[in-house]
């Protein structure tokens, strides 16, 4: 080899770092956000939630466990902007404190579910054959359960804890992400660059994660964004059903559950957590749809 190649006369300039280019899909997605009104609005809503998640406890007027025994079930007032619950806790502060837990749960479970699903989709779509059949039929079996039922099943058998909520949601999401990825990989795997990699004897993991995965970032980003909104719904639904966080946690779903008995006396109690949930869901959906629309080739 060496004797065939004369050394180049000048040292060559080093190219752009490979790591920088790996974010190309993300940068394209960012460009897509700027290009779409819906995505911009969605991103703005999520940005507010992000600020709440990071700074919520610092910005909130009270601690989420702070009792005001003289102000039980009070309507919104200047002192308690969103009213108080049966223990006299400030409802606004509780929503602000709760943002971190609820959103973290949603983000971690979405990312974990996507990671599992992407791996399954990559492996199934690339190896095909028996491996694919076993994986995808398993995914089909998981998908046959309604999401919430499957998550409840997992939580009731494992026990109640945020970790298991994350695991439950991730398992619910895995087959859906696997389906999306498998479709993308099926068409990519027939490409000549994959054959070229096989012809030079690349290992399976290299082909999956270095040749195929970088070409699938765009659908993964779109899928993750939309999946995130379902994840918020699912996480808060589980909280509402009492399968997630335990009191006195300011989990948004749990807060709605706790507000339920007082719906006649204090209908404003359910409103702050409900608004928080729906705005996060709408934001994530707008963002995902917007990105998808502007990345779709004309």
């Amino acid at each position, binding site marked *: *080899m060496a004797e*065939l*190649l*004369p*050394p*180049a006369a000048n*040292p*060559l300039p*080093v*190219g*752009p770092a*490979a790591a920088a*280019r790996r974010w*190309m899909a993300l940068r394209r997605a960012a460009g897509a956000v700027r290009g779409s009104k819906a995505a911009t609005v969605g991103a703005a809503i999520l940005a507010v939630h992000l600020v709440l998640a990071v700074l919520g406890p610092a910005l909130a007027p009270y601690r989420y466990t702070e009792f005001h025994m003289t102000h039980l079930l009070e309507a919104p007032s200047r002192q308690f902007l969103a009213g108080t619950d049966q223990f006299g806790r400030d409802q606004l502060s509780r929503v602000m404190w709760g943002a971190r837990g609820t959103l973290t749960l949603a983000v971690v479970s979405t990312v974990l579910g996507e990671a599992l699903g992407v791996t399954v989709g990559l492996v199934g779509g690339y190896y*095909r*054959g*028996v491996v694919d*059949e*076993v994986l995808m*039929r398993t995914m089909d079996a998981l998908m046959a359960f309604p999401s919430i039922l499957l998550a409840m099943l997992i939580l009731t058998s494992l026990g109640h804890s945020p970790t298991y909520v994350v695991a439950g949601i991730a398992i619910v999401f895995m087959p859906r992400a696997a389906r999306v990825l498998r479709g993308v990989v099926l068409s990519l795997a027939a*490409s*000549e*660059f994959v*054959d*070229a990699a*096989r*012809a*030079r*004897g*690349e290992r399976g993991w290299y082909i999956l994660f270095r*040749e195929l995965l*970088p*070409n699938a970032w765009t659908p993964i980003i779109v899928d993750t964004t939309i999946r995130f909104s379902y994840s918020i719904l699912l996480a808060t639904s589980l909280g509402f059903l009492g399968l997630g966080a335990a009191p006195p946690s300011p989990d948004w779903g749990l807060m709605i559950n706790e507000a339920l008995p007082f719906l006649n006396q204090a209908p404003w109690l359910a409103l702050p957590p409900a608004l928080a949930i729906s705005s996060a869901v709408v934001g994530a959906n707008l963002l995902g749809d917007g990105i998808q629309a502007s990345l779709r080739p004309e």
Partner: protein
Amino acid sequence: MTTAAPLLDVRDLEVVYRTARGPVNAVRGVSFAVAPGEIFGLVGESGSGKSTVGLAVMGALRPPAAVRGDVRYRGEPLLTKSPAALRALWGRKLSIVFQNPGSTLNPVLRAGAQVMEVLQEHEGLDRAAAFARTVELFDAVQLPDPAGVAGKYPHQLSGGQQQRVSIAMALACDPDLLVMDEPTTGLDVTTEARILELVRSLRARTGAAILYISHNLAVIAQLCDAVGVMYAGELVETGPVAEVFARPTHPYTLALLRCLPRVDAPSAQRLLPAIEGALPDPAAPVTQCQFAARCPMAEDRCRREPPPLVEGLPGRTSRCFFWEKVPAPDAVPAERVRAASRTVDTGTAVLEAHGLTHEYGMPGRRLVPVLGAPPLRALDNVSLAVGGRETLAIIGESGSGKTTLGRCLVGLLRPTAGDVMLRGHTLPRRPERWTRSTRRHMQIVFQNPDLTLNPRRTVFEAVARPLELFGGGTREDRRRRAAAMLEAVKLGARYLDRLPHQLSGGERQRVAIARAFAADPDIVVCDEPTSALDVSVQAAILNLLAVLQDSRGVSYVFISHDLSVVRHLADRVMVIYRGSVVEEGRTEDVFASPRDAYTKALLAAVPTLKTPAET
């Protein structure tokens, strides 16, 4: 050209596409006329604007394309007609046949129903009459079992049959003018020959004027009466086809003719006279001869002002100041650039295959086997041996199994039976067991330049990966070597950090070749490496392969359906038909005196540059 009043008269046609990057002049100052019963050929490479002309003369271009100039059909201006008036003409008087019949035909309608629809719409026939006429038309385009084909869906027909259905549809209402845009590109040569014969007989029977658009000079030579050569949106030369090809009056026509490998008259040179350089930017204003940058005859004047279309020889036009000085294609001895002498070493085989058989649809790939589906035998007991520095060509039509053979040879497919041997060592049947050092000796170059490179990886990463895998070394070291590899494929180090979408098809194929050679292989399987490229690019790639073979001593297994290319490049050929070898021998022997009936038919079907009048 005939003296009769032209049926189609195009004057100063201009097409401008408005794009995000500003207006792009796709077609400039194109004028030609087609008489009734005449076949006018429009020939050019991709990006020359020939298909745009085809659509423009149909009046079928819509914004963002802006069409200027005068297109007259039977003396009536077409471009100013209302959409309703045009629709009344389309399909009835003006018809068009496109390259890809698979997307022209509606996949959910039976072939017959699609033609009947045209007849019912334009001719007002009832169902029974339309069906009878459809069967007649299918018979006229020589479809076997016309009534049976009418009841089939497009996917049940072969590519050639689909194209004949779309030709039948175009002919349904006896059009006066038929535009055919690359109707045989992508079809096998034997199918192509039948379609060309069909077009000739149609012209004789109906007297329609035909505008035939193709990149294939040999097809144009076989079929057309007159020809217009397009380059960068301009007609650079027109005239009767035999005269234009025998004595071109534009350097581009000459260059095109010379860079074509000839099946009928193979040259002694190992290298083809390729056309260096690239098309000019279509968005740039025209201030000089568009071909000047690539023209060996260009003088200062060519770079100062654009040449007008001049009438040189009688009945001919040329867009060249120096049209009289253009030499005849055969008269110019290309500089004898035969690279370092190459001695084929047939004594020891580098690569051998014994009794290779491959069946698709083998059980074991599915959890629940599909019952009753017999395996398809794509390759049947094929044996071959390739010597050192030798080029063995595998010739076959689509579906012959030639690609399957290539994939078995480099371990992309596991043969059902038979063995591959590398330098006398039998390789494991399961390619997963091949070692890296085995893999390193065998590389493959693919047909489709679009996805031969990973779209998300730079040229450097593509070329350096085999170096990393097989050689190691530091990153700097690999970068230096990758740059040297790019020099070897005539691209240069400035390409290192580009991504595939920033490269042309020919450049991508060069990078793919650099990647294959980076591992310093003994044998390279080339699977139709030039069939998706323009002829000028093809010539350059074929030259590159020849030079690399000479300098690095590799052997090639060259898979191709293009017999001209094979004749130019190969030492030995092997013809396969339905998975079996039907003939094998030295290239000269097989082309001079084929023994097998299929080989004979294949050779007879190849269009040559000799016009029918000459033969």
